[in-house]
C-alpha cells in the first residue's frame, strides 16, 4: 500500500526540476509572451517552452509505464476486502469476552473481601464472646473467690478483667444483652473496689501484727489490682517500721554500752553498720518479690522509701554521736587552736579514737551507698533494656539525685569536713611533738624525728584513706604536702642554717675542751645560736644528722607515694569516688612526690655549706704547704724525699683523718657526694699551687710521684671516677716530667693518640715555663 503513494520511488527517477506532475503551468505565462516584442526574446522563450514540452512528455511516458503495476495492485486490494470484515468481527468478539472476564473477576474478588471481613468480624465476635464469657467467668470467679477468701484468685480475676479491652466491653453493653452485661460489670467493679479495700485492710492488719507471710501475700496482690505505687509505698512503710524499731533497739544498746567494752570506741560506727546491714538485708530479701510481681525498674521506688527511714535513723545516731563524743566542741577547740596558739591546746592523742571512728562511719556509709547504687543500677538496666537513651539518662539522674542528696550523704560530708580539720591539727601537732622530742642515738645516722614524722603522716593519710572518701583522702594528701613542704622542711632548713661549726686545725685533735670551742666558734661565726647546743661536737653532729635526715625525707616521700599508690588501687577497683577519682588522686599525689626533690635541693645546699665551712678551710692550708716543699731538687734530695716524704703522705693522712669523721657520720650517698666536692676542690687548689711553684727535672718526677699517690688514695675513698677531675693535673705532671721542651711534640697534636689534652697551648707553655731548666726561647719556638 505504501508503494502506491509514492510512484516516483517506483520509477527510480529524480523529481523533475520544474515541479511534479501536470498540475503545474509553465513558468512562462501567456501575458509574458504577449508582452514580448523583440524577436530575440521570443526565440528565447520559445526555446524554453520547447524544453519544457520535452520534459512533460518524458513524465507522461513514465506515468503510463506505471499503469500496469497499479492496476494489478488494485486487483489485489479488491481481493482483501472480505478478509478485513472477518477480522473486524473477531476483534469485537474478543473485546466482549474480555469485558465479561473482567467483571467476573471483580465479582469474585469482592466476594473474597467480603469473606475476609466476615472472618474478621467472626474473630471479633468470638473474642467478644470470649471476653463476655471471661467477664462472666471473672464475675462468678470473683464472687466465689471472695467468698472463699481466696484473694489471690479474686485478684487474678480482677486482673483479667482489667486487661480486657475496654471498648469491647463498652460495645457489649450496647448489644442485646446489654443489661445483663451491665449488671455483670457493675458487680465486677464492685468486687474490684471491695477487693481493694479488703486487701488494703488485710495488709494493714498484717503489718500491724508483723505477720510477714500475710504482708508478703497481700503485697503480691497489689500489682494485680494495678496498685503498684500503693503496694510499694505500703510495703516500704512496713519495712521502714521494722528498720526503725531495730535501729531504736540498737541505739538503746549503745547508751548502755560499757565504756570498757572492746568496741566502745567505735560503737557509733558499729551502730550505723548494723542499720546499713539491716537495710541491705531487707533489699536483698525482698528484691526477688518486687522483681517478680512488680516487674523490673521498681526497686528504685522501694529504696527511695527505705532511704527516708534510713536518713531518719542516721540522723538520730549521728546526733547521739556528736553529743556523746563532743564532736562539735572538739572541733571548735581544734579550730581555735589552729587560729591562735595562745588558747590551751587540745592533746592530739585525745582526738585519735574519734578520728578513727568518723572515718569508719564514712567508710560504712560509702559501702552502703555503693551497694544501693549497684542494686538500683542493675534493676534499671533490666527494665530499660529496650528504652531510649533519654529514659536511661533520666533514670540515672534519679539515682544520682537520690544518693547524692540524701541526708546520709550530707551528714557524712559534714562529719568528714570537720574530720579533715581535726586530722590536720592532729598531724601538725604530733609532728611538732616529734620534732620537739627529737633524739639521736649513737651509731644511728638519722634522728628519731624523721621516722616519727613519716609514721605520723602515713598514719593520717592512711586514716583518711580508710574513710573510703576520695575527696577526704586527696585533702589529707594536700595537707600532708603542705606540712612536709613548709613546716617540716623549715625545721630541717633552720637546723642546717645554724651551720657546721668552723674548726681550726687543732680542733681536729680530740681532747680539747669543748667550752673553748664554743666560744671560739661563736665569736668567729657570730651567727649561731648556742642555746641548746652544748658543744661544737654536738653542733657538728646535729648538722650531719640533719643532712642524713634530709636525705631520708626525700627517700621517704618517694616511698610514701609508692605505698599510697598500691594501697589505693584496691579502692579504685571498687569504683568508689566516680570516674575522676583516679585523676584527682594522681594529681594530688604527684604534688606530694614533688616535695621529694625540694628535700634533695636542701641536701645539696647543706652539702655546699659543709664543703665551704668544714672542708675548704681545712684543706686549703694543707695544700698550701706544697709551696714550702722545693721541687727544684738534686739527686740527693730526691732520694731523701723517697725515705722522708715531704708533703703528700701527710696530706693524705690529714684528708683521711678529716673525712673519717664524715664517713662515720653521714649516709654513704651523702658521704660520696661530699668526697666528690672535696676532690674537686683539691684538684682546683692543687693546680693553683703547682702553677705557683718551680720545678727541675727531678722535681717534676717528684710531683708526678706525689700526684700518683694522691690519685691512688682518692680512688680508694670514692666511688666516683676521679681520673677525670685530675686530668688537667696529670697532664701538667706529664709536661713537668719531660726531658726536653720539644719532647712535648711526641704527645701533642697528631701524636696525642688516645690522650685528649685538657690544657690549652698557652697553658702548656705556662707549665713548661715552670721548669727552670727549660729555656724560654725553646718554649716560645714551640709550634703547638
Amino acid at each position, binding site marked *: 500500500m505504501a508503494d502506491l503513494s509514492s510512484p516516483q520511488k517506483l520509477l527510480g527517477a529524480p523529481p523533475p526540476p520544474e515541479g511534479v506532475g501536470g498540475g503545474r503551468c509553465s513558468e512562462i505565462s501567456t501575458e509574458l509572451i504577449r508582452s514580448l516584442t523583440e524577436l530575440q526574446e521570443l526565440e528565447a522563450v520559445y526555446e524554453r517552452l520547447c524544453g519544457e514540452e520535452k520534459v512533460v512528455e518524458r513524465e507522461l511516458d513514465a506515468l503510463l509505464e506505471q499503469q500496469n503495476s497499479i492496476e494489478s495492485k488494485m486487483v489485489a486490494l479488491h481481493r482483501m476486502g472480505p478478509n478485513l470484515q472477518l477480522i473486524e468481527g473477531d476483534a469485537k468478539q474478543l473485546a466482549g469476552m474480555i469485558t465479561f472476564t473482567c467483571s467476573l473477576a471483580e465479582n469474585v474478588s469482592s466476594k473474597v473481601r467480603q469473606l475476609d471481613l466476615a472472618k474478621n468480624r467472626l474473630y471479633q465476635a468470638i473474642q467478644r464472646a470470649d471476653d463476655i464469657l471471661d467477664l462472666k467467668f471473672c464475675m462468678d470467679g470473683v464472687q466465689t473467690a471472695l467468698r472463699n477468701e481466696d484473694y489471690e484468685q479474686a485478684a487474678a480475676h480482677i486482673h483479667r478483667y482489667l486487661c480486657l479491652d475496654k471498648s469491647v466491653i463498652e460495645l457489649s453493653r450496647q448489644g442485646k444483652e446489654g443489661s445483663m452485661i451491665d449488671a455483670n460489670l457493675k458487680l465486677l467493679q464492685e468486687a474490684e473496689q471491695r477487693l481493694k479495700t479488703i486487701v488494703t485492710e488485710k495488709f494493714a492488719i498484717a503489718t500491724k501484727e508483723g505477720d510477714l507471710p500475710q504482708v508478703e501475700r497481700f503485697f503480691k496482690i497489689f500489682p494485680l489490682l494495678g496498685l503498684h505505687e500503693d503496694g510499694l509505698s505500703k510495703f516500704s512503710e512496713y519495712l521502714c517500721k521494722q528498720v526503725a524499731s531495730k535501729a531504736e533497739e540498737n541505739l538503746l544498746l549503745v547508751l548502755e554500752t560499757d565504756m570498757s567494752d572492746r568496741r566502745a570506741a567505735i560503737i557509733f560506727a558499729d551502730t550505723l553498720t548494723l542499720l546499713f546491714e539491716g537495710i541491705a538485708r531487707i533489699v536483698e530479701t525482698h528484691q526477688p518479690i518486687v522483681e517478680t510481681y512488680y516487674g523490673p525498674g521498681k526497686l528504685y521506688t522501694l529504696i527511695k522509701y527505705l532511704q527516708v527511714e534510713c536518713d531518719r535513723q542516721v540522723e538520730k545516731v549521728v546526733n547521739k554521736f556528736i553529743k556523746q563524743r563532743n564532736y562539735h566542741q572538739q572541733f571548735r577547740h581544734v579550730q581555735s587552736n589552729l587560729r591562735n596558739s595562745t588558747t590551751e591546746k587540745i592533746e592530739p592523742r585525745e582526738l585519735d579514737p574519734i578520728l578513727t571512728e568518723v572515718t569508719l562511719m564514712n567508710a560504712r556509709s560509702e559501702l552502703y551507698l555503693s551497694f544501693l547504687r549497684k542494686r538500683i543500677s542493675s534493676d534499671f538496666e533490666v527494665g530499660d533494656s529496650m528504652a531510649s537513651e533519654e529514659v536511661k539518662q533520666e533514670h540515672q539522674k534519679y539515682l*544520682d*539525685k537520690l544518693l*547524692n*542528696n540524701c541526708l546520709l*550523704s*550530707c551528714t557524712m*560530708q*559534714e562529719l*568528714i*569536713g*570537720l574530720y*579533715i*580539720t581535726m586530722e*590536720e591539727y592532729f598531724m601538725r601537732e604530733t609532728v611538732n611533738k616529734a620534732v620537739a622530742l627529737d633524739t639521736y642515738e649513737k651509731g644511728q645516722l638519722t634522728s628519731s624525728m624523721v621516722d616519727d614524722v613519716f609514721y605520723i603522716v602515713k598514719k593520717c593519710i592512711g586514716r583518711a584513706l580508710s574513710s573510703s*572518701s*576520695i*575527696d*577526704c583522702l*586527696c*585533702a*589529707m594528701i*594536700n*595537707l600532708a*604536702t*603542705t606540712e612536709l613542704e613548709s613546716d617540716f622542711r623549715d625545721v630541717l632548713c633552720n637546723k642546717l642554717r645554724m651551720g657546721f661549726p668552723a674548726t681550726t686545725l687543732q680542733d681536729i685533735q680530740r681532747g680539747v675542751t669543748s667550752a673553748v670551742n664554743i666560744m671560739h666558734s661563736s665569736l668567729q661565726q657570730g651567727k649561731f645560736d648556742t642555746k641548746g647546743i652544748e658543744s661544737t661536737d654536738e653542733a657538728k653532729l646535729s648538722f650531719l644528722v640533719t643532712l642524713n635526715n634530709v636525705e631520708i625525707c626525700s627517700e621517704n616521700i618517694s616511698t610514701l607515694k609508692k605505698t599510697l599508690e598500691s594501697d589505693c588501687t584496691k579502692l579504685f577497683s571498687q569504683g568508689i569516688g566516680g570516674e*575522676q577519682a583516679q*585523676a*584527682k588522686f594522681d*594529681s594530688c599525689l604527684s*604534688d606530694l612526690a614533688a616535695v621529694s626533690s625540694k628535700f634533695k635541693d636542701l641536701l645539696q645546699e647543706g652539702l655546699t655549706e659543709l664543703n665551704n665551712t668544714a672542708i675548704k678551710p681545712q684543706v686549703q692550708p694543707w695544700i698550701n704547704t706544697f709551696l714550702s716543699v722545693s721541687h727544684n731538687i738534686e739527686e740527693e734530695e730526691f732520694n731523701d724525699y723517697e725515705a722522708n716524704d715531704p708533703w703528700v703522705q701527710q696530706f693524705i693522712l690529714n684528708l683521711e683523718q678529716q673525712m673519717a669523721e664524715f664517713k662515720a657520720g653521714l649516709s654513704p650517698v651523702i658521704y660520696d657526694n661530699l668526697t666528690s666536692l672535696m676532690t674537686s676542690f683539691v684538684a682546683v687548689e692543687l693546680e693553683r699551687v703547682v702553677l705557683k711553684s718551680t720545678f727541675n727535672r727531678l722535681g717534676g718526677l717528684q710531683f708526678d710521684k706525689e700526684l700518683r699517690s694522691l690519685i691512688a688514695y682518692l680512688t680508694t675513698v670514692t666511688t666516683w671516677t676521679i681520673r677525670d677531675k685530675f686530668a688537667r693535673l696529670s697532664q701538667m705532671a706529664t709536661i713537668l716530667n719531660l726531658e726536653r721542651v720539644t719532647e712535648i711534640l711526641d704527645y701533642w697534636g697528631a701524636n696525642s693518640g688516645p690522650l685528649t689534652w685538657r690544657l690549652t697551648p698557652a697553658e702548656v707553655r705556662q707549665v713548661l715555663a715552670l721548669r727552670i731548666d727549660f729555656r724560654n726561647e725553646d718554649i716560645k719556638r714551640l709550634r703547638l
Partner: protein
Amino acid sequence: MSMEDYDFLFKIVLIGNAGVGKTCLVRRFTQGLFPPGQGATIGVDFMIKTVEINGEKVKLQIWDTAGQERFRSITQSYYRSANALILTYDITCEESFRCLPEWLREIEQYASNKVITVLVGNKIDLAERREVSQQRAEEFSEAQDMYYLETSAKESDNVEKLFLDLACRLIREARQNTLVNSVSSPLPGEGKSINYLTCCNFN
C-alpha cells in the same frame, strides 16, 4: 601524645558561693556544654584542658570546688598549690557578692602569696535580674587589686577569654620567675609579644 606533652602546666581553682555557676563555667570551657539543672558539686571536680597560646601548649588543670560550707575543709586544701584562683559570684545574687571579703580572707590564709586571683561576675545573660552593678564590682576588684570580668556560661560570653587571658598571664608570670631564677639562660620565645584574642587585657 605523651603525658608530658606540654610547655606549661598551671593549676586553676574555682571558688565562690554555691550556685554561682562555677561548674557551668568549667563545663563550658572544657567541654563546650551548658548542662541545665546541674546538681551541686560534691567535694571537688577535676578537669584538664590543653590550649595552645602562640604555639605553646599550655595544660590547664582546673579544679572546680563545691561552694557549700560543709566542703570547705576539702576545698581549702587545694588553695596552696594553685597558680590561679577564679573567685566567682553571681551578678543576680547580692549575697554571693557580699560574701567576697570572706573568700578573700580564705585566700589570704591558705593560698600561696604568688597566686593570681581573678574576680568573675557570672550569669550576665540574666541582666534583667542584675543585683550587683558592674561599676560596684569593678570598684571592689580595683580596691582588692584583682582582675575583673563578667561572664555568661550559658551564652558562652567571655568564658574563653577568662581562661585564655589567665593562661597568658600565668605564662608571663612563670617567665618572670624563671628569669629571676636563671638570669643567664635566655628563654625561647622571649621578646615575642603575646597577642591572642587581645590577650592579657584584663579590663
